[in-house]
Every structure is written in C-alpha cells, then in structure tokens.
C-alpha cells in the first residue's frame, strides 16, 4: 500500500505548492508554516482537489478519510446522536470516548470548539481507514485531549496516516517526517534521524537539540524522557 505524489504542483495568484514523494504505510508528520499549503496537500491526498500538474497515484488503498481542520465543516447531524450515527457508529461509546456522556440529544453547535473537535476525532478514530489524513487534529484541544489524541493516533498500526500540523507542544510518535519549505514539500526521512534536519521544529525540541539532547520521538513522554536522560 502506498500513496505517491508525482511532481504535483498547485499555483494561484499568490500561492504555490509543489512536491513529489511516496507515503509508505506508517505515520507521517507534515509540518509547515501558516499558508504554506498543508490543507491544499491534504485535500490533494484525499482526492478532493486536483493538482494543476502532476498526479497522485494510490496503490492498494481502498478506504480514504480526511479529517478537516474545522470540525464544524463535517457536521451533518442536528444532535450528537444523529451526528455519530452518520459515521455508522453507536452513540454511547463514541460519546464516552469524546468525554461527552449523556449528551446524545444536544445540538452539536452548543458544544465548545474543543468539545466539537473531540467529538469529531472520536468518530474518525473509532473507524479504520487505509489512508487517514488529519488536517490540524490538535487545533482547539486542551493539553489533556492533545495528549490523549496523540496517543490514539500514535497507536494506529495499519495503513497510511498523514498528519498535517503546526502543533508544537503535544505530538504523537511518528515514523516519517516531511516539511514544507519555500513552497516545496520535502521528505526529511525516518524519525528519529529526521528530527535533526527539521527546520521549523517545535521550540521544546529546538531547546533540547541546543543542549545536545536528542529525543527518540515526538511524544511528550519521549521529550520528557530525553530531558531527564542521564546517559546516551
């Protein structure tokens, strides 16, 4: 199973993103600055947008899911119960996972943005997809939920997971790292080796690297373990 970007390019008046590469099974983190084209690439990977040139090849990929940055854009149900049912899931376990037990009849728009994101992620992560694309999955979550979500994403063992994010505090363990630099998607390699060449790395990672400390991966546990490590 693999997803391949074959010399894709999208150009508008003031915007350009281009890239090539193969996404193998595993968890890929794609980082980039605001407006660098993360969402555009996520849409292209999901097949919801066509590049101006180049093409996307999918080998052995059946099911595809895109989690959009703004959870309200996914809503179809007028209650939490009907929203969850629209994902072909049972309300009770999903509400429990989202930390919203007993709120079956509530209007999704009565939730805070963080609660809505929790509900949406609980629906997405309760199912399995060959290709799962997560656009800013940590946005709006509090630290407890960021860590829980990072753990859930990091425990996905099957298929290809692409995480497009600028999150810099709580991240999952990932297998591969990509970065958008000057309008181009670049493959930095496998983690942990790729962490060294990460240009816009999270401040906490930059702080550790300055001190010659190199975490094995990106989870909060990995960061804290490295910070407290007393041996190589």
């Amino acid at each position, binding site marked *: 199973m693999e997803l391949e970007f074959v010399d894709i390019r999208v150009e508008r008046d003031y915007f350009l993103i281009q890239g090539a590469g193969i996404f193998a099974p595993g968890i890929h983190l794609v980082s980039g600055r605001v*407006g660098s084209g993360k969402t555009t690439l996520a849409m292209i990977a999901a097949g919801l947008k066509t590049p101006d040139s180049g093409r996307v090849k999918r080998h052995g990929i059946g099911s595809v899911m895109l989690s959009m940055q703004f959870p309200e854009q996914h809503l179809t149900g007028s209650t939490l119960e009907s929203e969850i049912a629209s994902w072909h899931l049972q309300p009770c376990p999903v509400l429990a996972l989202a930390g919203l037990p007993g709120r079956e009849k509530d209007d999704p728009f009565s939730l805070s943005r963080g609660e809505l994101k929790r509900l949406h992620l609980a629906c997405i992560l309760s199912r399995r997809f060959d290709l799962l694309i997560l656009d800013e999955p940590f946005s*709006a979550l509090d630290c407890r939920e960021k860590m829980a979500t990072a753990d859930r994403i990091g425990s996905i063992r099957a298929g290809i997971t692409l995480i497009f994010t600028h999150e810099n505090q709580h991240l999952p363990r990932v297998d591969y790292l990509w970065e958008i630099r000057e309008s181009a998607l670049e493959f930095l390699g496998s983690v942990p080796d790729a962490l060294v060449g990460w240009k*816009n790395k999270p*401040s906490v990672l930059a702080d550790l690297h300055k001190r010659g400390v190199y975490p094995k991966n990106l989870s*909060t546990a990995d960061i804290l373990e490295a*910070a407290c490590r007393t041996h190589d």
Partner: protein
Amino acid sequence: MIDIADLRFRDLAIPRLHIPPGHTAVVGPNGSGKTTFLRLIAGLLTPISGTITVDGREIGEIETGFVNEFPDRNILFYRVRDEIAAPLRFRGISCNKTLEMVDAIVSRAGQAHLAPRLLKQLSGGEKTLVALLTAVISSPRILILDEFDSHLDQESISLSMDIIACSGAEYVIQCTQNMELAASCDQVLFLSEKGLELAGTPEEVFSRLRRTCFYPILWRIRDGT
C-alpha cells in the same frame, strides 16, 4: 482595572475578580467556559446577574477588539483589504485615511502580500492573522482573543505577539491552549468545570498546576521534573 462582581451566566459564576492592565492569559480544559467568559467581557453576552466594569465604566462603553475562535466567523467582507478597513469605515473615517492605515498595518506586520487577496483563498491561519489586524486597526483599549493562536505556527504566534504589543491595547485578554505562551503573560486565569479556580502571576498559577499537563513543558524541563 477590569472589575467583575457577582457575575453569573449559565454555569459560569465569578463572585469577584480584578484584572489589572496588561496581558492576561485564560487557560483551562475544553468546555470550562473560557469562551463564555471572554464574550461576557467583550460585551457580546449579557450576564444574568452581576457587573463588569472598566475603571468604573460599563464594558459596552469601551472600545473593544475581538478575535473569534472560528476564523470564518470573523469575516464580513470579500477582500482582505476591505475586511481590515471595516472598523475604520464603520467609524466614518475618510477613504484615503482608511487605506493609508490599512497599508501601514499590513506592511508593519509583514503581511502586505495578503491585502489584495480574497479571504476565501486564505488558509485558516492567514484568516486568523487578518482577523487580528482587523481587531487592532482601530486601537481598541481592550483586545480579546479567543484561542486564535491554535491556528498559528510558532513564527506566526511570535508575529502576532508583536502586533498585539504594538496595538496599544491596555488590556489584552487571551484564551490559549499554549502554556508556554500563557507563561509569558502578565497574569493567568485558570478556569475549570468548577469555575474560576486560579488567578495570579504565571508563577503563582502554574505552581498550583505542577501535577497537571497545564504546567508548561519548558518549565518542566527547566525544573528537571
């Protein structure tokens, strides 16, 4: 000083709180009432009971800038330049003066490239930066920011902090999930499902949150804990 007394709105109850001038971070779990609190201070919600005053004046009498947590809900116009100009145009400031001020603020913020673009073409983070520039262009005395930084990368957050510092706002009240950012503010308020639990300097508030994930990771590394 922003003075809150006997405030009640739905589940949120704050018997008494004084917010001094400066940059105040509002932190806490999802669903703890942070957005409600900000909207009450902005005058976008009316409390069931209690008062919010600024140096003795009603909150609605004070010029206030507000950035919504949903980037699309900030938008009124089609083009970025028109969006940023809106607060000045609503005040009847001349077209020439308005355009001059818009060009000045986008240039100062290094975002001149965004000015001619259509808002629908922008990323979530870019829309958020536009919303911030729109909120500060009329030099509000109070600036309220609802988790806008969750749409921004580190460099954009630094840029936003510069924009905020140059805005001249006397009170900046910012809800955030970025504890490193909160730790750099003058005051921190911690809301939980129980209401307002903690208020004070970052050191005072975070020292009480040491056993939680709300304690800044950089501080945890600094402390060796």
